[in-house]
């Protein structure tokens, strides 16, 4: 990609400053996209294309339709929003196991009779506040209480589950507010509002991660927390903020799932954390932090969703689905790793 290996300079002692950066600049858009993760994720794109081909071949009448595509995107949207938050946390060197149940708790809190009586805005505020609050607790326990993220967020998972059950009395709380109920059924230009919401969260997440000091410092902290500290970054405050971002995503997802299912329930989001983390890692983010792309995580979510969609359209038995799903994940990761290796050499 560039002709000058970093060490080649060592062999050219004379005329050092006479050498301008010779690399031709690719078009800005291409560069932004590549830098943002598409380039590193060609393998996942290939996997998606492969899955699409399988879909077209096995379900030619149902798979390649607009309405099916929108169904896939809608199914992906909720876990996708959670995945955005989890991507931030993992790139920053942490992990968040609590997202699924924090979302459930936020959905329950936002749909109590009392909250609903104040209308849609208060419900949305309430969901976001619960998400942010839970994220804050996670972050403070981890950054200041020095509890390892795995344990702190696992404890949050369990407690949020319990609290959601307590508040809801273990019942599904029905959304009566027409505005919230309408979110999932509204379409603009034929595309569900949930899909727009998903797109906005991705876009904002991408900009924050790649174009703000917050995002770049997230990479720094995940890559080398000590170096970030020595460079004057307030690592602990930043860590708290990362979990708050994740909590905020839970709040947004809570509104979405409340609208999609027209209920708030403590059973929402069970095991979503594993799916979200798996999507992030398949997307090429290191579990140890410091490296990763949001685009990869989203592609990971799409891979999972398309697999499920394919299974449904082909009406496979669940046990066969599971066996195949495990194998597909392994193959996807192998393809992705191979593609990345060959692109960097």
């Amino acid at each position, binding site marked *: 990609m*560039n002709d*000058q290996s*970093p*060490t*080649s*300079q*060592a*062999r*050219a*002692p*004379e005329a*050092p*400053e006479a*050498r*301008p*950066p010779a*690399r031709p600049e690719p078009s800005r858009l291409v560069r932004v996209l590549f830098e943002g993760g598409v380039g590193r994720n060609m393998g996942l794109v290939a996997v998606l294309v492969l899955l699409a081909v399988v879909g077209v071949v096995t379900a030619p009448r149902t798979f390649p339709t607009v309405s099916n595509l929108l169904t896939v995107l809608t199914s992906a949207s909720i876990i996708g929003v959670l995945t955005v938050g989890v991507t931030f946390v993992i790139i920053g060197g942490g992990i968040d196991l609590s997202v699924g149940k924090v979302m459930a708790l936020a959905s329950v809190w936002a749909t109590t009779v009392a909250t609903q009586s104040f209308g849609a805005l208060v419900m949305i505020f309430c969901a976001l506040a619960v998400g942010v609050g839970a994220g804050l607790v996670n972050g403070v326990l981890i950054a200041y209480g020095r509890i390892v993220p795995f344990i702190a967020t696992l404890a949050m998972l369990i407690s949020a589950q319990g609290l959601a059950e307590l508040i809801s009395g273990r019942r599904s709380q029905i959304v009566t507010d027409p505005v919230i109920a309408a979110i999932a059924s509204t379409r603009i230009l034929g595309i569900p509002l949930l899909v727009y919401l998903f797109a906005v969260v991705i876009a904002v997440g991408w*900009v924050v991660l790649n*174009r*703000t*000091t*917050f*995002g*770049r*410092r997230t*990479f*720094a902290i*995940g*890559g*080398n927390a*000590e*170096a*970030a*500290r*020595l*460079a*004057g*970054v*307030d690592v602990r405050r930043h860590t708290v903020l990362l979990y708050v971002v994740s909590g905020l995503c839970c709040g947004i997802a809570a509104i979405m799932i409340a609208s999609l299912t027209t209920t708030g329930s403590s059973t929402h989001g069970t095991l979503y954390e594993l799916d979200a983390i798996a999507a992030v890692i398949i997307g090429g983010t290191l579990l140890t932090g*410091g*490296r990763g792309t949001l685009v990869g995580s989203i592609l990971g979510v799409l891979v999972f969703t398309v697999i499920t969609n394919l299974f449904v359209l082909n009406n496979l038995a669940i046990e066969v689905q599971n066996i195949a799903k495990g194998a597909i994940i392994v193959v996807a990761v192998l393809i992705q790793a191979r593609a990345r290796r060959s692109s960097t050499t």
Partner: protein
Amino acid sequence: MRGIVKTFPGVRALDGVDLDVAAGEVHCLLGQNGAGKSTLIKVLAGAHRPDAGAITWAGAPVAFGSPHAADAAGIATIHQELDLVPGLSVAENVVLGHEPARLGFTRPRDAEKTARRLLARLGHPEIPPRRELGELSAAGQQIVGMARALARDARLIVMDEPSAVLDPEEVRNLFRVIRELTADGVAVVYISHRLEEIREIGDRVTVLKDGRTVARNLPARTTPTADVIRLMTGRALEYVFPPSTGPAGEVVLEVDGLGRAGEFADVAFTVRAGEVVGLAGLVGSGRSEILETIYGARRADTGGVRVRGRALPRGSVPAAVRAGLGLCPEERKTQALLLDEPVMRNVSLASLRRFARGGFLGGEAELADAGVVTAQLDVRPADPRRPARTLSGGNQQKVVLARWLLHGCTVLLLDEPTRGVDVGARSEIYALVRRLAGEGVAVVLVSSEVPEVLGLADRVLVVREGRIVHAGPAAELDEHRVLDLVMEGADMTADGLAGAGS
């Protein structure tokens, strides 16, 4: 700085240290490994809080509670352990913590411009600011680290062993920049174990020993080397290479047409029992790769390696170790040490089989034998149950050597064995290498310090861009000749290195 005290669990790293630095001077900090140099500058940089003592900055007492505070006061630090983030780009590393931004949105172009300017100033305009830092060589990363410090327009720049991973040409560049800085009234604190560098660039010297200041503000150019060494080590030490121990035995290691695509090619040489063969070359010339390939840690594309006439399988470290090879790799911390494990377990790692009966460990032999070899190498502190992390750099290097001393090898591959090692330990390592050779071990030595290669090796191979361009007895070479060969005859004997060596 006055009376600085800093204790770690079990160690009193600083025990009343004083340091005065004047504007526009290069103040050198000397001391053996573990003397407390890095700890002192971490206190200065706000990374550690001192237990006692006072810091006066520009006439006023200060207490830096965080790196940020020191930074705001105008103190920039290049730490000994690279304080960089591998996953970020070069430019982002340069501006980390002070990203040019508007409303929180970064301005990558400004950052790249800054990085390009600073890298050019350091003589490296060709390092691409957008390249991911982790893809650069250690030397490249060190240069980015320096650019980072320069980015702050600091009034005091602290450099903790910046030259350890640099070759002579890079060091020359560094010194040029330091001179420019001091000419502008910036103060520099410079730490190095290479005394000839101190002599060239330093103005005044402060010497630390066991966490105490033993000498302050000595004139750097006129104090006799022997005095400095005595102050550091507490004993008179001759900084010379032990003599070669006579004729070598039969050929033990044969390297034949070894090559790896993109790294090196056609490497062929032999080493006899009791012989020390040195590989000289620039940083990035591929010497480490050659060693690692011989050792099986990288799989050779072409050629082969024979030990005592038996061919080694490609790409198998266990087979190489069984055949009697041992490697002290270039990066101690990432390639050699289990930092959280006791010294004892670091030492015995390659020899576990010896202490095991049917796979079971548990005798006291392991502790005892590890204790003996570490004592032999004078690893300090002497307790082999201390975690390796708490040892200073030089002592960590000795631990790695102790591993192969305990295991015993026919061929010892040493990659930069004295990087970051103080004069005392250095001479001990030299003596050890010689002694092993005397006992019939074949040694291959890679070092970026030409005098070391010349002084220690019987035969020198010069590596340039992955090829051996010269092979011959060390006695027939001198430093300038080696540098000529290394740099492809570039004219560089005239100025920068005139004062170096001795």
